[in-house]
């Protein structure tokens, strides 16, 4: 048994060096050279400033932008570090609501959001993804239905024809991969950037 001690120690150190340092560092070097944009986090820059990442959702509250899904991410309470406060789309602390199917807190939140959205657009059914929080709290996408649902509000705020916005939503919609995998979706940040460009014309 004693002669197993040397391999235990030496192999542990060797594999720490190979799998814990050489592998991730080499991959960082190669990935940075081959796919530099993705390796840095698929960042979008405008006028030299980072606007965000195309993969990470951000909070939109103004009427003139399409809104993403509700986010349940938290941040430490600035007044009491042992507590947390709601901080939607906190990309340094991802997470979901973890509310279950019989949660009263979830029922209350859903009812409030559905009522608010129904008041905003009484003519369409409220899409489920627009009132449910995502798993990461950073979901960059909404369903095409959720984007269309918001067209009247955005059209009014921007004084743009609804048809033009509907076209914009349609052209921003990404289908399933090879028509099979995943779901159709609209990247909210990309849609809003396209919207700003369209308004500027």
């Amino acid at each position, binding site marked *: 048994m004693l002669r197993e001690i040397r391999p235990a120690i*030496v192999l542990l150190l060797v594999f720490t060096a190979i799998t814990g340092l050489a592998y991730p560092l080499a991959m960082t070097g190669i990935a940075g050279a081959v796919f530099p944009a993705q390796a840095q986090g*698929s960042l979008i820059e405008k006028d030299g400033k980072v606007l965000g990442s195309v993969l990470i959702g951000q909070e939109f509250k103004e009427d003139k932008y399409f809104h993403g899904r509700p986010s349940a991410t938290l941040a430490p309470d600035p007044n009491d570090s042992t507590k947390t406060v709601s901080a939607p789309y906190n*990309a340094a602390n991802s997470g979901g609501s973890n509310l279950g199917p019989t949660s009263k807190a979830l029922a209350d939140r859903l009812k409030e959001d*559905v009522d608010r959205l129904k008041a905003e657009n009484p003519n369409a059914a409220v899409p489920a993804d627009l009132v449910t929080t995502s*798993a990461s709290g950073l979901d960059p996408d909404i369903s095409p239905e959720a984007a269309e649902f918001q067209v009247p509000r955005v059209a009014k705020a921007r004084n743009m024809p609804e048809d033009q916005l509907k076209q914009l939503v349609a052209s921003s919609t990404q289908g399933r991969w090879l028509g099979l995998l995943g779901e159709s979706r609209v990247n909210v940040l990309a849609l809003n950037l396209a919207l700003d460009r369209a308004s500027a014309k």
Partner: protein
Amino acid sequence: MTVIGWLQIILFCVVIVGLTKPLGWYMTRVFNGEKTFLSPVLRPIEAGIYWISGVDERREQHWLTYTVAMLLFHVGGFLIIYGVMRLQAVLPFNPAGQTAVAEDLSFNTAISFITNTNWQNYGGESTISYFVQMVGLTHQNFLSAATGIALAVALIRGFSRASMRTVGNFWVDVTRCTLYVLLPICVIYTLFLVWQGIPQTLGDYVEATTLEGAKQTIAVGPVASQVAIKMLGTNGGGFFNANAAHPFENPTALSNFVQMLSIFVLGAALTNVFGRMVGNQRQGWAILAVMGVLFIAGVAVTYWAEASGTSMLQALGLTGGNMEGKEVRFGIVASSLFAVITTAASCGAVNAMHDSFTALGGMIPLINIELGEIIVGGVGAGMYGMLLFVILAIFVAGLMVGRTPEYVGKKIEAREVKMAMLAILVLPLMILGWTAVGVVYPAAVASMANAGPHGFTEVLYAYTSGTGNNGSAFAGLTGNTLFYNVTLASAMFVGRFFMIVPAMAIAGSLAAKKSIPPSVGTFPTTGGLFVGLVVGVILIMGGLTFFPALALGPIVEHLAMNAGNVF
């Protein structure tokens, strides 16, 4: 449920079955010590590793030595993780300025990673540095996976050998598994993941100014290299708190599909390794069929439950299934499928929050783990876990006809059956025992996030996941408390090693036996009858043990939900 949803599920199954044979062929060569197409590059490295560590690759070990070597290796692994977590403030690659991790959380995480559980009481981007991610976690992801596979191969050798005292050399098995199987796949896999959008950088967290002018700090890091092995090695500990739901850990439907494949692929291939080593590949396919039956049943229930949604959503006119805690790019089907895969294997990565699943949709992941994670299972752990159930099933079959049971040429006798039962009884002991404590001890009760039966399920799920070395969670439960850090660590430790030691004892006992040729009285173990028998034994064992607990949790919650109750 939709046709396109089922097509995604079928495509997944087809690809897994397609990969089983070629990968099984390759892995068999690796563990038999034969040449592979990578040998010209890797053989000199392998020989160098043996030379500096003083390993004689031709000297095989008795099962007890093999097990002790494995345990020694894990003591070292534990010390490294614990050490780097406690010291991370003074170690390099810490751009976010993370401070030392607390003693109990470091202890829990170290146990969690050496046992291949990867339970996340730590918060990823908010708790640990890049250095800990790489040297502590990425490194142990490789070694705990390699260990699991090595142990499974040792048990398979027990079946395939005759009248021998040894079951292989642990150091050689771990080294060859890491160098020839895990690392080459991970190198290619990492590049694929970066191409899909996963970051791989040592740079600072990004400070962005959003379109509406707010500040957003975006956590990045060497993510892709960690994600590759976390999936392939069925580890499941995420780089980020939200795990594979985070867009930086799983950015597209394609990355999601490949991640699901990588959870299952090595475990499925091991069934073929088993078949090849015992000299009849149909033995391996029969085991994969047992796994397949249970898997499809689980997928069907979870997909149906999640697509049906909850009565709360329906009352508000919200259609399209239960999207709370799910990502739009995956939708209902890819989230349901992922949840069943990650718990059938002992992966524990999640791309949707299981805590927000419907009562029945969330019950299937729970059952998958409670059955022992033998539906493909953790890399290696699933294979030796399944072989324990096969031994029981064969024993039951033997009782029915009054013959000494045999399996692939080995007589299954009292010692094997006792050891198999010893290993399997660990599950109810840790799961039900600790859950009972957790639901009465006040400090533990305070950790529940949901009230009513769902709170009970959160606790049950935590100990189930810990004991099964899964690592997924009903994550509303506040696990980062002294009570949960310590008790979950004990569940993970006992769940891993108290299963391994009896399994290795079986390996040693079988290897020493003579091989007997099949006769007309031998129960055929490659046909539908055998598959049905094993499925039956697994369900009866699991059902008798865990049904009362499930009745108190998800089943009563389902009834409450349909009655319109909220808590």
